[in-house]
């Protein structure tokens, strides 16, 4: 089991400061995508638009181990009618402008910046939507990422690049990178917070069963039973060695399950009186 932080960004110029801050290296073996990585961090440059963003999410999720806990952060520039360029916002609702479907990221932590609605357009727009930030990837990003993670771990953080007074046409690669650069502390705060939450609440002790599965032949049902017993063992006998010697005399998987079950059932009380408050 691993916890992976995934950045999904549309433009290389948006990615550049993040790559530098997190010391990511380009994955040369990645095909058809531009992927950077280091340890438990991935960054994919998706390209502009909803389809590109969803594809990028799918690429990362499909490339990693099935028991990976994914944290997803879509970072990029966005427009807003009135917010000043350089303002940073997290999305608390993402609406796909074309379909009207709304997605609700679950903000279970104190955000390092204000949050706003985020509207996702199919084309670049300068017709800003009320008090909402505007981009071109977030709805598809969210919809795709929420297939692989619960909504507490899928977020969009946007840096305002243009508004009704500051023209989008004046942006270039350097100015986009500079905007993202100013929000790096916010980005790191969010990923650190989500990693901590995941480690605290989602990371489970999994006792290794490989040796047992190699030595005895377990049916699919018996594998589930073994996993359930391993969970109970970890909860009830956290300081005892997961059985090895105790199973020497077992001739088949059934006997193994029976033996482990007996040991778990004979565990000391699972709830011990600890005295009054």
């Amino acid at each position, binding site marked *: 089991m691993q916890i992976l932080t995934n950045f999904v960004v549309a433009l290389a110029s948006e990615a550049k400061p993040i790559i530098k801050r997190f010391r990511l290296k380009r994955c040369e073996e990645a095909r058809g995508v531009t992927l950077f990585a280091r340890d438990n961090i991935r960054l994919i440059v998706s390209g502009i638009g909803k389809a590109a963003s969803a594809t990028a999410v799918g690429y990362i999720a499909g490339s990693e181990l099935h028991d990976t806990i994914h944290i997803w952060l879509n970072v990029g520039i966005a427009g807003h009618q009135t917010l000043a360029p350089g303002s940073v916002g997290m999305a*608390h*609702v993402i609406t796909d402008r074309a379909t009207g479907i*709304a997605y*609700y990221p*679950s*903000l*279970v*932590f*104190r955000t390092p910046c204000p*949050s706003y*609605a985020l509207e996702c357009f199919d084309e670049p727009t300068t017709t800003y939507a009320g008090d909402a930030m505007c981009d071109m990837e977030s709805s598809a990003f969210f919809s795709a990422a*929420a*297939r692989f*993670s*619960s*909504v*507490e771990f899928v977020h969009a953080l946007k840096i305002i690049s243009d508004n009704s007074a500051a023209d989008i046409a004046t942006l270039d690669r350097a100015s986009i990178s500079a905007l993202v650069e100013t929000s790096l502390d916010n980005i790191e705060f969010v990923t650190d917070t989500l990693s901590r*939450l995941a480690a605290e*609440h*989602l990371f*489970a*002790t999994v006792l290794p069963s490989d040796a047992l599965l190699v030595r005895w032949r377990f049916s699919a049902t018996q594998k589930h039973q073994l996993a359930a017993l391993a*969970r*109970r*063992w*970890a*909860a*009830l006998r956290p300081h005892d060695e997961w059985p090895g010697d105790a199973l020497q005399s077992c001739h088949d998987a059934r006997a193994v399950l029976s033996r482990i079950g007996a040991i*778990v*059932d004979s565990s000391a*009380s*699972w*709830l*011990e*009186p*600890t*005295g*009054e*408050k």
Partner: protein
Amino acid sequence: MIDTIYVEARVADHWRTSEIITRFPQARVIECADHRAVFNRRQQNFRIQKTRPALILAHKTTPRIYPVPGDQHLGAPHNYYFSHLLNCPFDCRYCFLQGMFSSANFVLFVNYEDFMDEIVEVCAQHNGLVHVFSGYDCDSLALEPLTGFAAYFVEKFVPIDNAVLELRTKSTQIRSLLKIAAHDHCIVAMSLAPEVIVQQLEHGAPSLKDRLRALRRIQDHGWSIGLRFDPLIPLNGNAALLGEFFSTVFANLDPDAVHSVTLGTLRLPRNFAKRMFKLYPAEPLFAGPLIDVEGTVVFRDESADNILSVAHDALTDYVSADRIFLQHGAP
């Protein structure tokens, strides 16, 4: 502390919505078309949300009142429940809400008046006594300062001759009940457990001592009280611990003025249990002697039977058997 409030478009202009929002000036307020777009969608994590639940203000559509399932009642001929609120601020590890909902956010249905209209209508359909339970999907009183639930509903039951409202709680938020004159149309039922269970499994809930103190004040004020020992969790040395526990409980209360006592053991629908085990894989409670009996996960017979009979016997020292009700059905 609530820092995110979702407001269903339909109740955006409701006075109760405005009043609640003004209590949280720092909260972000997000409008949604329907509370179900936020609450209980797939791909949510109850455990994570429990660390910082949001509040969802919504409109409850019909039906708003439901017949009580199975034998989870107090012997009245007609029994119903309703839920003005979904979820609870306490974090009891055995609570079935963890398995029933995928979201730990609070949903507060602000159209109390509609609930009351339907309750009046249902009670009018019966000649006999109707018990109306309010704490199935929430704690009736825990969010009272925010919801004003008891302050509104309790007095509304007075004119309904054949109705009794049960408020079920682990909370000490009793101020609104102490402000009004007690009457026979309301029972305040407190869920109680030995302090060891409170400490290990009822995270965030008041201590046994505090609950008993609140219950005593309620009783002294003239309200009928109920005692709810459900679920009873088996402990080593059941008899001694339970005896000690009941002795503590009744030392603080007037046993003769106890309306009813209910007893039940842990019982969870299989699907709820599966979700709960997945949420808390390291929880010793879920690694204990539990078995699946026809789709309901319960403690193994010897543990369950033992604790129920021990508890029943011990309780008859304090209250007559006709006031003790065993609860068997799964929620």
